[in-house]
């Protein structure tokens, strides 16, 4: 397993220092890109717990992000309750949903794509429900009031710098948490389940319990991303919050970066966001509708074909980190 050597530690310290001072060095555009990178690194890390560690494919993680976002935003919108309190409700809702999805899937031994279908179905049901729930503003959406120039940390109201530091904190915390989990009994049990659940059970791994922990921890972290997202963008629509596309988006950074690795989600997020920005610029120049998506799709295809285990394992080998 990846041992964190002094050299890696040094590299991480420099990276963290750079990230801490980044708002002072970068302009508005640069910061907005970095915010995206950290967001995808963070949700990717959360999703990676399920797929990368425990081997359970979820293609419905938008459910947890959407629930987290809607609960916190709704409490603020309707009752003026700030997200620092609202996030607990958001996390609780996501964990409850994850417990239902997990229990149905794992108790009845739905594996692989069948489990994935179940996760998609739940995200879809929820989308339809929210489309018709007046509290959420239904399909017309929910909008949080934006006051320019006001910074109100207690209610998570402010400019990009505030959101930058919040997502940076989340990304770093998730990294540390995943590292601790992976180096614990639970983490090793997840790997065992991923490799062979029946063999794991034979050496005493309580498989159902461990899978339930994976899905609920992953959902809780994802819900926080949803809260952050709702307050950063100030609007929520069931159509996008619970969309299949949103779920897929969450999976990309760890897949491209390296499933089951600690650095994979971050590396994947850097590459994906970078490519996204480049292809957007190219698309604007060429002025051909949809060309960005074509380039982006091709790039993903090439990466997955040539680095099926992801970029990080290959990069780590080149850097001599093992």
């Amino acid at each position, binding site marked *: 397993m990846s041992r964190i050597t002094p050299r890696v530690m040094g590299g991480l310290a420099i990276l963290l220092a750079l990230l801490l001072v980044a708002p002072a060095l970068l302009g508005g555009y640069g910061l907005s890109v970095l915010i995206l990178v950290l967001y995808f690194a963070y949700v990717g890390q959360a999703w990676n717990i399920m797929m990368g560690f425990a081997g359970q494919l979820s293609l419905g993680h938008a459910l947890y992000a959407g629930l987290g976002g809607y609960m916190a935003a709704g409490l603020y919108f309707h009752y003026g309750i700030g997200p620092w309190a609202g996030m607990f409700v958001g996390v609780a809702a996501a964990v409850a949903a994850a417990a239902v999805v997990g229990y149905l899937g794992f108790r009845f031994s739905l594996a692989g794509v069948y489990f994935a279908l179940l996760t998609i179905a739940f995200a879809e049901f929820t989308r339809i429900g929210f489309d018709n729930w007046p509290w959420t503003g239904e399909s017309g959406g929910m909008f949080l009031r934006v006051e320019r120039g006001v910074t109100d940390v207690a209610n998570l109201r402010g400019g990009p710098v505030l959101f930058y530091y919040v997502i940076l904190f989340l990304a770093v915390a998730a990294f540390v948490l995943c590292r601790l989990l992976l180096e614990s009994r639970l983490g090793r049990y997840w*790997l065992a389940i991923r490799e062979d659940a029946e*063999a794991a059970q034979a050496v005493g791994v309580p498989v159902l319990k461990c899978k339930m922990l994976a899905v609920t921890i992953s959902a809780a972290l994802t819900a926080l991303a949803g809260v952050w997202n709702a307050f950063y963008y100030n609007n929520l629509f069931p159509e996008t919050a619970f969309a299949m596309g949103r779920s897929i988006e969450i999976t990309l950074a760890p897949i491209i970066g390296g499933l089951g690795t600690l650095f994979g989600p971050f590396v994947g997020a850097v590459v994906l966001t970078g490519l996204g920005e480049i292809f957007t610029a190219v698309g604007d120049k060429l002025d051909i509708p949809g060309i960005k998506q074509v380039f982006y799709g091709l790039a993903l295809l090439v990466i997955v074909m040539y680095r099926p285990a992801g970029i990080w394992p290959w990069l780590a080998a080149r850097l001599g980190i093992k």
Partner: protein
Amino acid sequence: MTGARLELAGLSKDFRGLRAVHDVGFTVPAGAIHALIGPNGAGKTTIFNMIAGVHVPTAGTVSLDGRKISGLRPDKVCDAGVGRTFQIVRPFRGLSVLENVTIGALHRRPHLPDARHAAEAILQRLGLADRRHQPAESLTLPDRKRLEVARALATEPKLLLLDEVMAGLRPTEVDVMVAFLRELNAQTGLTILLIEHVMRAVMALAAHVVVVSYGEKIAEGTPAEITRHQAVLDVYLGEEEVA
């Protein structure tokens, strides 16, 4: 680590009409090494799977030191003190040999460094120490069989179920494994039940042999008695010779 007494009574298993095991009963005293033999498809692995909690028996019970364990989930059976290997090996393929055994050791040692330490010692004893950082999927079949034994032992069982761990081993390797199991049994008093087609190993290890054919127990006794038993000779006629 001490051994536990295993008792099977009236054990049966039907698979949708197919009677895989029918009314099998026998006892393995604490600290003994017994063998379970029989032709292909006789129901040996099915008996193991009922002991290990993979299959719930259609009828009958399995008990360990007088406590009923049949019907428990496999991880609970492991908690109760049963370690098992898989006939068709099931290593954690993508993980290293050391990680494979460490995961077994985590069962009784919740802290990763302790578990890893215990795993190192077991790998040493099974001659896998120099391969410990290799991914399990890169091992040869005989080494995978050893890894199965190492991982099961790491859970510190009181009863070890070995399903054809000698298959595919060269005669000298069989002797090494036999010597290892004998020493382990002598040192720890661990009870061992082994399914084995390699008669050389059965004769060398087992004090007592149970023979099954078409899901039923047809004979049991010392290895010497078994080789003289007419029903056993009939069953094995045209198969490999006994002894």
